[in-house]
């Protein structure tokens, strides 16, 4: 546990010292969302209908953009390889990296969501559903994205490849989360959606770090 916290502290410190790297995905998220009213229509009825989809697709894309940061610099300077040699379980280190990735990307995105809900004319219940869906859903994105990042970290042109590998896996999260927000906007009961998202989160916490640890070791072997 101590090690787990050490990893998180280290990652957060690195993130704090390269604040621009963190701000970019967040800015990207806001800019993409503000492009849609300009591109489709600024009318309230249209935006209310497509709002949940827009916010969630933008969240998927900005998570993908930040995914490359997860292992890249540690791979380049060799510290990733050193971590696999340490006596501590590598799985724990990987999980720590993923958790801190979520803390600096998914969490700010979630905290920002009420503002965006306001921009897209969502009502109060819808905004609450959006907040909850992002709170449960973005950790899944970080966990699944980490698998893609670990498999492509050794490649020079990994960025676009992660998108091809991982976006199809995001489909269930996108479907459930947008359905949840839409139910919320109609003041319906979205507990079922939330439980499903929670089930996927539990499954990903169990399995994704295993695949990621394996992926890192494969990427280091060549």
């Amino acid at each position, binding site marked *: 546990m101590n090690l787990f916290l050490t990893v998180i502290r280290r990652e957060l410190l690195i993130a704090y010292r390269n604040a621009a790297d963190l701000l970019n995905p967040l800015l990207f998220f806001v800019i993409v969302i503000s492009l849609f009213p300009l591109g489709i229509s600024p009318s309230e009825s249209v935006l209310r209908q497509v709002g949940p989809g827009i916010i969630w697709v933008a969240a998927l894309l900005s998570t993908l953009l930040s995914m490359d940061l997860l292992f890249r610099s540690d791979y380049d300077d060799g510290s990733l390889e050193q971590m696999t040699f340490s006596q501590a379980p590598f799985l724990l280190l990987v999980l720590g990296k993923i958790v801190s990735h979520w803390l600096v990307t998914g969490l700010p995105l979630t905290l920002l969501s009420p503002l965006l809900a306001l921009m897209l004319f969502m009502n109060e219940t819808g905004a609450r559903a959006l907040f909850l869906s992002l709170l449960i859903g973005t950790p899944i994105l970080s966990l699944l994205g980490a698998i893609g990042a670990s498999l*492509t970290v050794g490649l020079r042109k*990994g960025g676009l490849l992660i998108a091809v590998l991982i976006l199809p896996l995001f489909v269930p999260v996108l479907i459930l989360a947008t359905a949840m927000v839409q139910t919320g906007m109609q003041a319906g009961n979205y507990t079922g959606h939330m439980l499903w998202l929670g089930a996927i989160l539990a499954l990903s916490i169990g399995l994704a770090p295993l695949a990621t640890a394996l992926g890192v070791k494969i990427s280091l072997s*060549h």
Partner: protein
Amino acid sequence: MTKVAAAGVCRQRVNGSIHVQKVNNLVWHWFHRLSAPKSFFELSGKLLPWFAVLAVLTLVLGAVWGLAFAPPDYQQGNSARIMYVHVPAAILAQSSYMMMAAAALVFLVWRIKLADIAVQCVAPLGASITFLALVTGAIWGKPTWGTWWIWDARLTSTLVLFFLFAGVIALRSAMENREAAGRATAVLALVGVVNLPIIKYSVDWWFTLHQSSSFSMTAKPTMPAEMWLPLLVMVVGFYLFFATAWMLRIRTEILQREIRTQWVRDLVSGR
């Protein structure tokens, strides 16, 4: 008396376990021999003509039967005959991903080179079959539903399946180191197979949430025998064709990978 009897039982037991072990060893021995690229090459060389001939026979039989002799659908008329291509392709598309994942698991656990070759060779085949299922589905959709594309649950999950195949192919072609590429692809295929049921159910569920009227892929719930028999023949034909094409690809890949070994040199030089 009892001592002798006990000894007898004991001997029997020992014999039994020895027997089991022998069979076990035999299975492993056979497994290892078969999984060596050279012996697979020889065995598949003997099997290939049979598979190819049977595939052609069943495909011709099923196509002629289905397209010319089977009765037209009572609602869709002759346009439903595309079913004899579409349904086998759709069935094969899903099971080819399962086959790929099974081969990937075998490669990750036992590091059998042949399994890696099998994964590499099945991915483009599976992607093509999935693409065929999508295209024939679209062609069938135009006369029946009046549109080329519908965000129907099955169509959508087949599309995602196609994306998963594309990801496996893209990852393989991006990595230069063959050993690492094989293992990375195997991990991705397994991650995909865990996700496949989740994707399928979430898409099904989303579909039922959004649209109340559902299209059924077959116009009649119960098909008469004159229709499902040729369909069955076509399904068998597709599987045989798939096996033939897979074997051919594996054989080519084996020759390419083993190009420096003596037996390939002997084979090529026609010793």
